[in-house]
């Protein structure tokens, strides 16, 4: 059964014309996709639908086998906790330290402080921010903030990981390390969707692409498969 299924989904913001038309696709559990397309094509908009930050204006979205239009306010948080998101603008809480930002999903899930401390410290060391746990996001570089955002997205071992331009602010070295991390998580069963402009990354990591062009979606196979 598909983890995510979109059927004839359309999205129109209250101001203006439709930005996504007749989107149809399925994400199998454990799959890995890039979401590509020119700026303004609607990548972030599609991501919003995927992380349940926006309701579609038409069509049916089902996630984890449940019809999202039937979701109530009470059941929504439970769905969202299974999704890890790296937002394009990070959405870090600026008055909290790096540690507390990454700890948020665990605290929201009601884990004990002992558990929180161990897991968060470990992950922050892993993304290279072990020395900056106490720093607040505004005092960190764009790349460092991005790593906090990534750590927050994966701390809870989500079933679905969504990253919107995660390599936008970081050098190639760390970018490669990051993609390797995502592949590692994917191998452990996490379904991954990464929205990116970065042609180089798409070429170096062979995964199928979902390509958005003027609000319409086209699924392209892995680049290697295309070359063969």
């Amino acid at each position, binding site marked *: 059964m598909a983890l995510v299924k979109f059927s004839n989904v359309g999205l129109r913001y209250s101001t203006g014309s439709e930005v996504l038309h007749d989107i149809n696709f399925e994400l199998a559990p454990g799959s890995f996709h890039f979401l590509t397309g020119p700026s303004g094509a609607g990548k972030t908009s599609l991501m919003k639908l995927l*992380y*349940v*930050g*926006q*309701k579609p204006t038409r069509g049916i979205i089902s996630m984890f086998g449940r019809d999202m239009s039937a979701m109530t*306010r*009470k059941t929504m*948080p*439970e769905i*969202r*906790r299974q*999704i890890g*998101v790296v937002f394009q603008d990070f*959405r870090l*809480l*600026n*008055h*909290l*330290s790096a*540690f*507390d930002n990454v*700890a*948020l*999903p665990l*605290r*929201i*899930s009601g884990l004990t*402080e002992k558990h929180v*401390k161990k897991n968060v410290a470990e992950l922050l060391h892993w993304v290279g921010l072990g020395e900056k746990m106490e720093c607040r996001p505004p005092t960190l570089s764009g790349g460092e903030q991005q790593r906090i955002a990534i750590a*927050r997205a994966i701390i809870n071992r989500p079933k679905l990981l969504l990253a919107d331009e995660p390599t936008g602010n970081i050098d190639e070295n760390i970018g490669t390390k990051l993609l390797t991390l995502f592949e590692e998580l994917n191998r452990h069963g996490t379904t991954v969707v990464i929205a990116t402009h970065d042609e180089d990354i798409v070429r170096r990591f062979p995964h199928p692409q979902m390509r958005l062009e003027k609000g319409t979606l086209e699924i392209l196979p892995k680049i290697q498969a295309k070359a063969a």
Partner: protein
Amino acid sequence: MSKQLFKKYSYDIALDEGVGAHLVSLVTGLMVFFVTLALVVNLGLSTITKNWVTGLSGTLTVEIKPPLAPAEGGKPSDREQERFDNSVQQIMTLLKGSADVSESRRLTADEIKNLIEPWMGQSAALDTIPLPALIDVKLVKNADASHLQSEIKTVAPSATVDTHTDTLDDVKALVNTASLFVFLLTGVIVLLAVVAISGIVRAKLLIHQPEVETLHLIGASDEYIAGQFRQHTLRGTLKGALAGLVCTFVTLLVISSVTHTLDTNIFSNLQLMPLQWALLIVSPLLVGSLIAHLTAQATVLKELSRLP
């Protein structure tokens, strides 16, 4: 280090920062201040009336007009003086023999002068003008005051009897009106506080909407977010309520020391049991912070349900 981390971590939302962070404390403080003051004033009033009522009811005063003096001045005639003395004597005999009376006493001339002095001044005239006779009467329980009154009238038609009921009714009516007013005022203050707190909380939610939205997207429930506000407003309301209470008692002390020299000091009449004192301190604190807190909580949950 874990202790330090834990101490630093308070709210996911920056509720302690920015405009209006202490408004909830302020409004709760004001509410508690006025409500406590109202409570004390009411308690004071009811104690005073109770004292007056028990002091005055069961007493009456008989007044016999002084003997008529001649128009040109000088002593009243012997005949007039005799009539006056007879009336007094007859009434005293009647009162002594009445089953309704427990005690009766004619005021001395000096006592009467003391009563009149505030109006007349300490002039030599006091010694020359004829004084009325005043008899203080204490009645037994369940005495028939009107029967006694008519008996006195038949013995001495010129005597007047003051049963103090008019004064009592006036005082009671006055105190009741004052109490009602204080209660209404308290109600209005509480209502205003509720409106103000709900407005403050709404403004706060609006200021922090991006953070609230992020928390929602990470998977926080409305209850989780409301819990953050709950902790914050609870701290704020308790702080405010405590400050309000302290202000009330400081105000009361000031009033009490100002009115100390006067005989109308309500606090000398306000003798409370320790339990009543405890109630006076705890109940505004509890009720005030509870009202503020519930208002904040209800507002947060209602407003959150409107967000995407």
